[in-house]
Structures are given as structure tokens and as C-alpha cells.
């Protein structure tokens, strides 16, 4: 459609509601939060905000709990990548064979993806409960694998791992569906040709399937990385960052600093770090992976 004066006003009229809502509630606040990261504010509305330069960031990176949160965030990301992608892609590959029962299996494995994280996290908190009536403890004790009840989410050595297991349960179905769609799109002729050439089993997967679904693996990787950097609900609900900071991650720490202790400047600084990490990692991982693809 050509743009004349009348359609120019139409364009504005149709865009305006979306622009106003989006700019005032998402775009402006993200810039404000950067400004807040460089300021001090006690959280009492009406009290002034003072510019303090890099003070919050310097303080933040000296803060042992924040370093711990970054390290935990790193392991959270790595373990989610290492568990969700192989699990999801293996399931997607098996489902794409379309044997009997595949569609119902696919439906069941995808169901956790749509459930509220609050509900899933609470259920897993009860399953991993430290009581001898906890589901996992009951199961392992009746199998004779452990002598007494274990506090899976309370012990420092296991807490992070068990939160990650719950998170994998919530998320792998998503990557299963991505890989299922990608593998289903590989032309049958290519797979048949590979089989005629003698490529079977793992060789077929490595030489034919994997190269055709690289694009999907990239998408899954970026989504898991950015999702892990932003992670909040599951840890806030299951452990609140405990025991002793063993599961603390930047997302939960940011909430605690700002809304529990009224350290708004420090909280904002963390939120800036989260935002920057998200952007850097989306751009970086896409770059790195497309580079490897060409090589």
C-alpha cells in the first residue's frame, strides 16, 4: 500500500497503543534500571536517588555471595545444557521414527513445559523432601539404596543438582519438540540414501541427522543459556538460594537484595548484569556456532 497523508495517520493510529504500552512498561524501565545501577536509593518512594558511579558494581563483584551466585549460575547453565539437549534430542530422534505410541509419548513428555513453574517446583520440593515420608526417600529406602532419609535440597552437596534435575524435567520436552520437528523435516530420500551407503545407527546420526539439525541445536542452546541466566522461579521456590548460598543465582539474589533488604542500587546492578549477560550470550553463542558451521 502506498503511503499518502491519510495512511500515515492510519499507521500511527494502529501502532500507537502497542508503542505506548511497550515503551512505557518495558523499554523505558530497562534504561532506567541501567541508571539505577549507578545510583543509590533506599526504596522509600519520594526519597532522592543519588548518583554513585560504579560503586554498586565494584561492591557487587567484591561480594562473595554474588561470586557464588555467578558460579552457581554457570553450573546451572552447563548442567542444563548437558542434560536437556541430549535428553530432548534423543527423545525427538526416537519419536521421529513414528512407531506405535509415539504421539502419546510426545504429548506426555511435553506436558511439563506448559505447567506453572510454581506448581512443578512445589511438587518437586515435596518429592525431594527430607522427611522419611518424602517420595524419593521412601522409594530409595524401600529399594535399600539409602539407609535413612536424605535432605536432597538441604545438603550443600546435592541441593543445586536436585534443583537442576527438577528444571530439566520442566524444560527438556521443549527441546524434544524442537528436535522432533527438525528431524521430521529431513527428507526421507536423504536418510534412505545414507542407509544405502551403509550408514547405520550412530554413523547415520553423526553424518546425516546431526548436520541437518544444527540450526535447531543452536536455537536450543541459546534458549537454555538465556533461560538459565534469567532463572528465578524454580530456585526462589525450591531453596530460596540456600542452603548457605549453595543454590544462589543472580536472579534470586537480585530480588532478595532489592525487595528483602531494600538495597535497590545493588539489586539494579545485578539486574544490569543479568540483562548484559543475556544479550552478550545470545549474540556470542550465535556467532560462535555459525562460525563453526562454516568451517
Amino acid at each position: 500500500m502506498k503511503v499518502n497523508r491519510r495512511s500515515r495517520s492510519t499507521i500511527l493510529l494502529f501502532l500507537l497503543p502497542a508503542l505506548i504500552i511497550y515503551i512505557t512498561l518495558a523499554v523505558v524501565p530497562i534504561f532506567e534500571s541501567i541508571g539505577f545501577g549507578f545510583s543509590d536509593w533506599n526504596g522509600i518512594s519520594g526519597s532522592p536517588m543519588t548518583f554513585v558511579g560504579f560503586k554498586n558494581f565494584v561492591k557487587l563483584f567484591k561480594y562473595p555471595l554474588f561470586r557464588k551466585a555467578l558460579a552457581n549460575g554457570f553450573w546451572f547453565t552447563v548442567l542444563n545444557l548437558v542434560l536437556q539437549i541430549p535428553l530432548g534430542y534423543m527423545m525427538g530422534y526416537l519419536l521421529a521414527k513414528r512407531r506405535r505410541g509415539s504421539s502419546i509419548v510426545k504429548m506426555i513428555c511435553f506436558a511439563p513445559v506448559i505447567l506453572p513453574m510454581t506448581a512443578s517446583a512445589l511438587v518437586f520440593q515435596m518429592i525431594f523432601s527430607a522427611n522419611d515420608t518424602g517420595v524419593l526417600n521412601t522409594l530409595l529406602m524401600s529399594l535399600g539404596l539409602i539407609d535413612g532419609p536424605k535432605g536432597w535440597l538441604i545438603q550443600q552437596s546435592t541441593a543445586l543438582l536436585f534443583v537442576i534435575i527438577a528444571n530439566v524435567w520442566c524444560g527438556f520436552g521443549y527441546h524434544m519438540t524442537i528436535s522432533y520437528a527438525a528431524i521430521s523435516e529431513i527428507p526421507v530420500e536423504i536418510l534412505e540414501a545414507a542407509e544405502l551407503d551403509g550408514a547405520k545407527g550412530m554413523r547415520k546420526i553423526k553424518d546425516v541427522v546431526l548436520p541437518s539439525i544444527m540450526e535447531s541445536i543452536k536455537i536450543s542452546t541459546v534458549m537454555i543459556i538465556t533461560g538459565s541466566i534469567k532463572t528465578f522461579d524454580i530456585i526462589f521456590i525450591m531453596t530460596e538460594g540456600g542452603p548457605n548460598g549453595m543454590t544462589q543465582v543472580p536472579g534470586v539474589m537480585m530480588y532478595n537484595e532489592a525487595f528483602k533488604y531494600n538495597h535497590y542500587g545493588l539489586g539494579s546492578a545485578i539486574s544490569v548484569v543479568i540483562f548484559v549477560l543475556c544479550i552478550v550470550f545470545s549474540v556470542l553463542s550465535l556467532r560462535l556456532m555459525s562460525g563453526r558451521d562454516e568451517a
Partner: protein
Amino acid sequence: MKQMKPRSFFSKNWFYIVFAAMVVICLFPIVFTIVSSFKTTREIFANPFSLPKTWGFENYATAWKVGNMGRYFLNTLFLTGMSLVLLVFVGSMASYVIARFRFKLQPLVLLFFVSGMMIPMQSVIIPLAFNLGQLHVKNSYTVLILLYVAFQLPMTVFIYNGFMVGIPRDLEEAAIIDGCGAKAVYFRLILPLSKPAIVTSSIFNFINIWNNLLFPLVFVNDKNKQVISYGLLQFFSQWKSDYGGVMAAITLSIVPSLILYAILQEKVEAGMMAGALKG
């Protein structure tokens, strides 16, 4: 060829063993929750794997009335419904212009909206708490609805735009020759034709808004205005020992999504995957 038989036999079984294991792992927490919601707390403690002796709804009565879950459920339904309606109009109107009009800033406007997918919700809550505090706005559903619209818009515009670009031009041109203005074209032609995009984006938005915890956690502290995700957490922290009641409350919070998924399986999957598959 002789070697093939035992191998293919093994691989066939391996296949179903993996499937069975995954089904048990994925289904157990959900079935455990739903079955436990009909058991007494003592029954759950006695044997977490047993079926209830009698299928009673006492836990639901407790959760609904004592735990205030009924209120939270209806609040969330209202909030989600209003946000969805607003998103359909605000999102499709913007996308109509982006997808069907040619103007200088068009690619930039699309990029502007879509790049919002990278804004983490955490990064805006402190400034928003500050701004709303200065305006003395508290517990406002209007703000919450507009917030949901703002954060669901990037994906919504992305979905509508992808669909609307593909609507044949002839239809629109015929309507314009018939004397329809842009508004009439939008309401009579584009909006009705975009039904698949409306369904896909609304499912995506429903799941995300229904499940959201962070915004109500920060912006709602009036107990009667609370939503189901945070309400569930509060119920859990107050009634931790009432396992049966907690299980009923959790079941209430997952039932709408499960029903939606049972009825519209393919569409729910397509909606949730929209960002990953077309991107």
C-alpha cells in the same frame, strides 16, 4: 544378515524401554499430585504411591475456601482473560501496519518490537516499583494487565507479523477498490483472516501469563487481589503440614493448562514453539 536379528530385536526393545521410562518420569509428578489431592494427609504419609481409599473432595474444599485458592483462581482467570483480549487487538493492529504497509521505518519498528524478547522481566521490576511508588499506584490490575501486554507484545507481534505477511494482497486490494478504508480492511478482512495467528499467540500468552510469578510477587500485596501462582506459594508456606490441601491447590493451578492441552494438543505445541520453530 545373521547378525541382524538379535540386534534389531534388542534395538526394538531398547526403544520401548526408553519410552516407558520417560513416560513414568514425566507423568509421575503430575499423577502423584492429582491422586494425592484426593487422599488424606495421613494416607499420603503412609504410602505416597497408593491410591486413595475413598475419592473425597475435602482437600479441594479446604484449598478453595480456607486457602483462598478459589479467589486466586478467579482473579488469575480475569487477569489472563483481559490481557489476552487486549493483546489480540493491540498486537494485531500493530502487526497489520508492520506487515501490510510500506513505510520507511517499517523494518526498524518490527526489530524494535521483536528485540523486546531479550528484555528479562527481572531487569524492569525495580524501576517499575520505583515509578509506581512515585505515582502511589499499588495492587493495580490495570498496571498488571498492561505489564503483561507489554511483555507478551514482542512474541505476539512476531507471530502476527509472520502470519499476516502471507495473506494474499489481492483480497486487500479488492476491498480497497470496493471503497474500504484501512480500518474496515483491518476489521472485516485482516482480523478475521488472522484467526490461526490469534489462536497461536493467545495460547502462548495464556500459558505465560497464567504461570507468571514475578510480577504479582512484586506488584500485588493485597491478599484478595493475589493470583494463583503466588497464592499457591502462600498457601504452601502457611499450610505446609496439610499435604492433601496443598496437592489440591497445586492441582487447581495446573488444571486449566492441562485441559487446554488435552483439547488443543497440536495448537498448544505450535503456540509454545512459535519462537523457536519459525525463528
